[in-house]
C-alpha cells in the first residue's frame, strides 16, 4: 500500500491551467485554504472552479484565476456577501454557472456515479434555466410524465478538500459534525488531494472516534498533505472555529494589499504574517 503523503506545493504542481477544479467545504467552513494559498503561488489560471463558495472562490476570483465558476452561492457566513467575489463578479471578471444547492449536489452525485446527469425537481420555473441555457430537461418515462431538470454531472479533473485527520494511505477523517460534500468531491474528481490537520497512524483514526467519521476512503484519494491550521481562516470543527477577526480583515482589505502582506511567501510565511498581525492587534 502506497504512501500518498505530499506537500501542498507538490499538489499544486500537478494542477494545470484550464483544469476543472472542485473545492470542498461550504461557505467559510473547512475550506482547503492552505492548498488554495499554494495554488495562488503558482501560475495556474483559466480554471473552472466548482465550489459551494467561500473565501476560496473570493481569493481565486480576485487573483484572476477563474475562467468559469460553478456554484449555488458564495458567502463568508458571518459576513453574508464575499466582497472580493462580488467585486470580481460586478466587473465581469469570470463566467458564472449559477445553480441551486440541490442541483449542485445532484451534479456531484451524478459525477461520482459516472452518470451523465441526475433528474431534479429544482430549477423548473425559476431563472436557473434562463441563465443556464445549456441545461436540458427530461421527461419521466413513467406514468407521471413529469418534466424534470437533467442536472449534468460535475466531473472534475481534481478536487481539493480539508479534513481533521488522515493516514498516509489517504483515508480521511471528519471529526466535525458536518461532512459537507467532501467525499462526493473526491469521488467526482479524477484526482483528489486531501489536506488535514494531522497525519496519524491508521489504527489511531478510530481510537477515539467512531468509524463513521472516516469520511474519505483511500480509493478516492490521490494525495495527502499535512497542513496544520490548513483551513484558516475558515472553520475546522472541532479543532478550531472561524477566525472572525482575520476574516473581517480579509473582507475589509483591498486585495493587492492583502496579497502583499499575507500571500507573498509560503505557508510558514503566511502563518507568521498572521501571528505578526495578531500581535499588533493585541499589543
Amino acid at each position, binding site marked *: 500500500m502506497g504512501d500518498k503523503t505530499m506537500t501542498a506545493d507538490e499538489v499544486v504542481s500537478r494542477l494545470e491551467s484550464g483544469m476543472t477544479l472542485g473545492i470542498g467545504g*461550504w461557505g467559510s467552513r473547512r475550506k482547503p485554504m492552505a492548498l488554495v494559498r499554494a495554488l495562488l503561488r503558482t501560475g495556474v489560471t483559466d480554471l473552472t472552479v466548482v465550489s459551494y*463558495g467561500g473565501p476560496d472562490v473570493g481569493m481565486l476570483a480576485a487573483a484572476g484565476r477563474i475562467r468559469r465558476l460553478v*456554484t*449555488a*452561492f*458564495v*458567502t463568508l457566513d458571518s459576513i*453574508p*456577501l464575499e466582497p472580493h*467575489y*462580488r467585486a470580481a*463578479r*460586478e466587473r*465581469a471578471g469570470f463566467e458564472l454557472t*449559477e*445553480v*441551486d*444547492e*440541490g*442541483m449542485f*449536489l445532484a451534479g456531484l452525485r451524478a459525477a461520482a456515479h459516472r452518470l451523465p446527469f441526475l433528474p*431534479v*425537481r*429544482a*430549477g*423548473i*420555473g*425559476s*431563472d*436557473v434555466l*434562463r*441563465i443556464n441555457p445549456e441545461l436540458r430537461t427530461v421527461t419521466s418515462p413513467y406514468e*407521471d*410524465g*413529469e*418534466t*424534470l431538470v437533467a442536472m449534468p454531472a460535475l466531473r472534475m479533473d481534481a478536487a481539493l478538500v480539508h479534513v481533521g485527520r488522515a493516514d498516509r494511505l489517504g483515508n480521511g477523517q471528519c471529526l*466535525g*459534525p*458536518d*461532512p*459537507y*460534500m467532501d467525499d*462526493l468531491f473526491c469521488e467526482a474528481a479524477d484526482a483528489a488531494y486531501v489536506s488535514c490537520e494531522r497525519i496519524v497512524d491508521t489504527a489511531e483514526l478510530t481510537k477515539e472516534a467512531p468509524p463513521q467519521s472516516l469520511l474519505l476512503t483511500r480509493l478516492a484519494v490521490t494525495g495527502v498533505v499535512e497542513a496544520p491550521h490548513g483551513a484558516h481562516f475558515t472553520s475546522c470543527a472541532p479543532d478550531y472555529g472561524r477566525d472572525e477577526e482575520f476574516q473581517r480583515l480579509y473582507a475589509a482589505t483591498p486585495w493587492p494589499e492583502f496579497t502583499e502582506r499575507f500571500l507573498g511567501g509560503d505557508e510558514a510565511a503566511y502563518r507568521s504574517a498572521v501571528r505578526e498581525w495578531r500581535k499588533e492587534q493585541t499589543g
Partner: protein
Amino acid sequence: MSTPETAVTRAALPPPTRAEYCVIACADAWRGAGEILASPMGLIPSLGARLARLTFAPDLLLTDGEALLVGPDGAPEGWLPYRRHLDLVAGGRRHVMMGASQLDRYGNQNISCIGDWARPRRQLLGMRGAPLNTLNNPTSYWIPRHSRRVFVERVDVVCGVGYDRAAGLGGAARFHHLARVVSDLGVFDFATPDRTMRLASLHPGVSVERVREATGFALAVPDEVPRTREPEAAELRLIREVLDPQGARTREVPEKARG
C-alpha cells in the same frame, strides 16, 4: 395556551413591541404544520419557530443552524448536516422561512443579484436553495424592512418560484405552496383568485396607506383588514424571558418603527 393568566400578571407585562408582533406572525406560519422541519432564516423567524415549538406546534423539528436537530433548549435529537438537509428539502417534510432581496406580487423571490444577471449592478448571495425549496416544500418569506426596494413590480432574477410561474408548470409544481410573507409592517398571503399578494393583517400602529406606500406593486387589500393577532401573555413571557432575554429582536425590528 393552557397557562392560567391572572389580571395581575397581565397588567405587569409591558405591551408587545413591533418585533414581538413579527415573532408571533412568523410563529403562526408553522401552526398546524405537524411533524416537519421548521427552517427559519434570520433571527425573528428563528424566535418564531422556537416559540411555535414551545407552544402550539410541539411536534416541529428545529435545527441549530448547523448540523444538528435540537429541542427548544438546544439539546440534540438528531443529525442533519447540509447534505441530508438538502435531501430532506427534496422529500418535502419542511417549511422554510427565507429572506428576499426582491419579492413580486406573485411571490417570485430574488437573492441572486440586482440588475442584469449577465452583468449585475450588485452581486448578492446567489440562488442558494430557493428553486429547490419553492418546488418541494411550503415556503414563507420574512422581510425585516418593508420597502419598494424589496416589494418590486418585477424581480431581476427569479430564484424562488412565484404563483404565476408555478401555474404553468403542471405536475412539477404540485408541491408548490407559498404560505405567507411577514414584514415589519404586516402579514401577507396569496389568497386571491389570481394568487397575488394580499394584505392579510396589519401590525398594530401600521396603516394600510403606509403599507401601500412601501410596496412597489398594487397590493390586494380586503375591505376589512384585521390586525395581527395579539401575543398571549405566556407567549410574551417566553419571548422575553426564555427565547431572547437579551432583546436582540429589537435590533432586527427597531421599536422606533416606521409606523
